[in-house]
């Protein structure tokens, strides 16, 4: 890491109001999708955001790019206060921060050719001549492993993996510094996932990109991320180096997530099991939001909201009992679940096979 800060987020909050009433709607509450999140991202770094569905991770990604307006908090991108910008300046800033979307079947305008999809952002931000724009489109296509002759086709003529490559090319087209990847591979076949993930890893090196990588697949996250932030009901419960977080998780929720990875062998007991369902973010539990599902919860957890504490290895954990709960047993081998390890091997093999690919 170069150590230069690219993104600084402070107590970012988004509450979606919930209204009832046909004629005179009144607010009956709000969904706290993102509730006071602070994080930083260094240049060239990849921060993965993981959590169950509905925990607010996609909302967080959109808030960072100001695709939706936050309720409060601040986002500084390379020192610029993103939330205070007027519309025009914000549109210009979008050149430097882009997004890759989850669903490659919904994220491409169905009636534009790939050439139009890719030249729109180039024309908007880079001001190249038509000839240079065309050259750049061809260049982008070959960077993501497609060919120039693909440019005149329409999105429906491509497979899911190819479409996601087009989405990646679009995100790259403006030479951005930050890309928010919103579950970029979860809609793809497992066989295609590895290729797209490795493409993202290569592009990061090639163009010096920084990623906010939203995901729920821990194997993918371990492969691509430098740091991991674990989100639960709109809050970050644990954030730190990926090896530290996955090898010795301190927050009970992180442990539950790691235990939830499906296992091939029968009969092995799970280490931490989160009981019940995710509570409604409309009415989050008091104190620690995880306490109704936490096997270690005690009276204090119900009453007091835990503050994040920084550990000696630099990671931050928001749990009252982080020093009291039993140590995470080092699983057989390198402390990674065998299933996860196998997935990691697939990713690594695909990465080695890469030179043969375009």
């Amino acid at each position, binding site marked *: 890491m170069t150590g230069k800060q690219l993104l600084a987020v402070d107590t970012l909050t988004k509450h979606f109001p919930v209204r009832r009433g046909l004629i005179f709607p009144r607010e009956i509450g709000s969904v706290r999708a993102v509730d006071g999140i602070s994080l930083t991202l260094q240049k060239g770094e990849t921060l993965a955001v993981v959590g169950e569905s509905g925990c607010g991770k996609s909302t967080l990604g959109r808030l960072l790019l100001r695709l939706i307006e936050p309720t409060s908090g601040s986002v500084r991108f390379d020192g610029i206060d993103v939330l205070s910008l007027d519309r025009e300046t914000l549109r210009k800033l979008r050149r430097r921060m882009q997004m890759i979307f989850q669903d490659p079947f919904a*994220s491409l305008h169905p009636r534009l050719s790939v050439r139009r999809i890719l030249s729109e952002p180039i024309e908007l931000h880079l001001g190249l001549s038509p000839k240079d724009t065309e050259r750049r489109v061809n260049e982008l296509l070959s960077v993501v492993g497609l060919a120039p002759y693909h440019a005149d086709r329409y999105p429906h003529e491509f497979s899911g993996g190819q479409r996601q490559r087009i989405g990646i090319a679009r995100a790259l087209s403006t030479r951005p510094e930050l890309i928010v990847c919103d579950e970029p591979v979860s809609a793809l076949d497992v066989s295609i996932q590895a290729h797209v993930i490795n493409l993202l890893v290569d592009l990061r090196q090639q163009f010096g990109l920084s990623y906010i990588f939203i995901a729920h697949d821990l194997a993918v996250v371990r492969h691509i991320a430098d740091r991991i932030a674990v989100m639960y009901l709109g809050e970050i419960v644990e954030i730190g180096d990926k090896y530290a977080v996955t090898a010795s998780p301190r927050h009970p929720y992180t442990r539950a997530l790691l235990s939830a990875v499906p296992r091939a062998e029968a009969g092995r007991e799970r280490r931490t099991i989160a009981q019940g369902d995710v509570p409604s973010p409309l009415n989050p539990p008091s104190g620690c939001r995880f306490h109704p599902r936490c096997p270690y919860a005690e009276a204090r957890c119900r009453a007091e909201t835990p503050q994040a504490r920084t550990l000696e290895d630099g990671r931050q954990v928001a749990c009252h009992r982080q020093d009291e709960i039993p140590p995470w047993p080092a699983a057989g081998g390198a402390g990674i679940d065998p299933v996860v390890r196998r997935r990691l091997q697939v990713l690594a093999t695909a990465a080695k096979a890469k030179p043969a690919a375009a």
Partner: protein
Amino acid sequence: MTSTDIESSTPLPRPVGLLRRLASDSTVLIAGGILVTIVAASLLAPFIAPYDPYETGYAPFIPPAFMEGGTSEFLLGTDQQGRDLLSRLLYGTQATLLTGLLGVFFGGGAGVVLGILAAYFKKFDPPIMRFVDVLLSFPAILFGLAIAAVIGPGIVPIIIALSIATVPDVARVTRSTAVVVMSQEYMEAGRAIGLSDRHLIIRYLGLNCIGSVFVFLTLRFGQVILIGAALSFLGLGARPPMAELGMMAAQGRDALFFAPHISTIPSLAIFMIVLCANMLGDALRDALDPRMRNM
């Protein structure tokens, strides 16, 4: 084996073009053929009409040539004032098609704009849609009456009334289509690129709504013609000497029992136009259905 090889090894079937799909539908060919003939005949009225539609000097109540007592001089006979019915029919179709078309054009245009704005700017959604609801609660006939009362009967108040009657339905259909399009990720992707609202509304939202809205407008065209004919029938539309199908049907009403052709022929013309427009609209809707793409 490269990554691209893996993915392109399953080529997607190329969808059949919209026009080809339409052309393979016999309904489209028949309905389209009839409609094209009617439109062409009405446009060519000044050249193919055998007589002046306003000239009254001929014998009245001559039945059509194919009926007893008819003469080949007047193919569709004459009306009670001795005007050639075929000539009046050609000119009348012209007027009827024009009012319907302009009604759909102005009303549909305004409706599309309102619907798209309501879907794109969520802030404007409630006021726009409440306004549309107000319009929706007025029957078109009532509008026609009111407008004719203010500026007098004629073709212009009819077009205004038809336009206003078209706005709310089109706005509702457009909005519901546009709301679905708005929730697609490519709209957000467009915003993430930094495209302007104008570009997003026209090239992203508009382009993806226009297909289904166009189908609705085609279906609506038939209804508008019917309402227009009804308004003319009630005497709110075209003024007497002018030829207009609805008004011609109304004028033949008194002679319905001894000279039924005066009223039935323009009515049949209205019927054919509306039927063909509806059939075309239905076929277009089926052809645009994405599930039909690869058939």
